[in-house]
């Protein structure tokens, strides 16, 4: 186990170094003054993190929408998925809307949402929810469906109530898929957060990105994107750690 971990990290590092090498090589031969070197981006990231107060402010603003939107997505997505998974009639009612939400391009709707909800945090949160929640619903539903019918029958044979069946069988059985849904949902939420800020609401990290690109500070644009990626990775890692603790029984479901 330990040995494999070392090997994994060694290989990851090797891929990283190779990618950076290709990047540096490309930039030095491309003769494009706007294209930043990796070292420029790293320096830019350093600058953002340690000497740019506005970065932290922007991160804070963006994260309000992200955290709130993701929390609401989880709060709506999981219950809807549980209901659709357990009750056929719920599934039949929700199915067409889930289809719409899954396939609908959200970005073109952003202007309409802003007209309806204004330029405040409500619109940003709404867009994040629109990006994220349906993926959590779909995965939760699949998780509930994957719970073996014989387990529910077993619980019933001991006289379990519907509430006990939910708490002891359905939810624990669906947890691995619920976590998979939350991982995908988180990725979508980050996309939604940046997208809405870029397209219309000039606030948070999106505003910072627009500013940097307006001033052609491409190193800082890259650095900001890198910071968003790092944050998303940290959130995913935290979620995966939680998942591992709760669902050590399950085979690894690696979606998203």
């Amino acid at each position, binding site marked *: 186990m330990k040995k494999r971990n070392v090997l994994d990290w060694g290989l990851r590092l090797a891929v990283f170094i190779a990618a950076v090498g290709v990047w540096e090589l490309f930039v030095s031969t491309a003769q494009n003054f706007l294209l930043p070197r990796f070292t420029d981006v790293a320096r830019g990231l350093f600058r953002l993190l340690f000497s740019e107060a506005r970065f932290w402010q922007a991160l804070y603003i963006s994260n309000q929408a992200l955290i709130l939107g993701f929390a609401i997505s989880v709060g709506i997505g999981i219950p809807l998925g549980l209901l659709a998974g357990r009750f056929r009639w719920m599934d039949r009612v929700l199915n067409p809307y889930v289809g719409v939400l899954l396939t609908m391009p959200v970005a073109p709707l952003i202007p309409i949402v802003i007209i309806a909800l204004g330029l405040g945090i409500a619109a940003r949160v709404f867009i994040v929810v629109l990006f994220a929640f349906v993926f959590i619903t779909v995965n939760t539903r699949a998780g509930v469906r994957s719970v073996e019918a*014989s387990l529910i029958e*077993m619980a*019933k*044979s001991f006289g379990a109530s519907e509430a006990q069946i939910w708490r002891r069988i359905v939810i624990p059985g669906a947890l691995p898929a619920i976590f998979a849904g939350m991982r995908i949902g988180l990725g979508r939420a980050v996309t939604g957060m940046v997208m809405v800020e870029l397209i219309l609401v000039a606030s948070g990290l999106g505003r910072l990105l627009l500013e940097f690109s307006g001033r052609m500070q491409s190193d800082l644009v890259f650095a900001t994107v890198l910071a968003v990626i790092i944050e998303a990775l940290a959130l995913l890692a935290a979620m995966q750690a939680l998942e591992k603790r709760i669902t050590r*029984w*399950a085979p690894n479901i690696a979606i998203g």
Partner: protein
Amino acid sequence: MIRVRGLSKEFGTLDNGNGGVLALSDIDFEVHDNEFVTIIGPSGCGKTTLLRIIAGLIPYDHGEVTIDGRPVTGPGPERAVVFQNFALMPWADVLSNITFGLEIRGASKDECQAKAIELIKLVGLQGFERRLPKELSGGMQQRVGLARALAVNPQILLMDEPFGALDEQTRRLLQEQLLRLWEHKRKTVVFITHSMDEAVMLGDRVMLMTPRPGRVKEMIDVPLERPRSREVEKSSAFLEIKEYLWDNLRAMQSGDA
């Protein structure tokens, strides 16, 4: 005592009463207290359906199913089921799986703990308390299933082909273990099987069923002494009953082949 009278069950009936498949038709039998009855029949004879009806897991259309005179309307505390595919919670360790029924029925933590320790010893799973089902062999998994059923101290044990998914050696070991347990602590057992050896080895009586629709063909007494050991398999009585079952089952299934 389990008493079944004129029981019929149809699946997939349309609202106008047409289109159903008759799974069980006019079933009559009873199982006395502390009796071990095995049920055997070709696939499609509705034996599992019958067991699930007695367990109170599915409703029935006609007739009467009573336990000590009370009609069955759902699962009850005097019954526990052992499932063919074990039906263990994959996320819960051996201990939690065994105490599941007790917890559902509102037993205290101490009670569960004490009972679990007793049962783990009884079925021989010491040292595996914290293992997950996927870390156990099939035979061990079904011993967990058996312990879970015994934990609620039922009068009646309903077993649905409990050893059907196991290999021959494991199956024999578990049959012997079940016999010892039952001889030590008598319970009423309804045991479904598709193995003729198993039916005769374990049962006080063997109920032979016919397929499509499931009916009771015959109740056959097994006059073998208890406690039984593997020696009885060589006795002429054992071989005769087995032969008789085979003749009947072959006749029923030759129509299918």
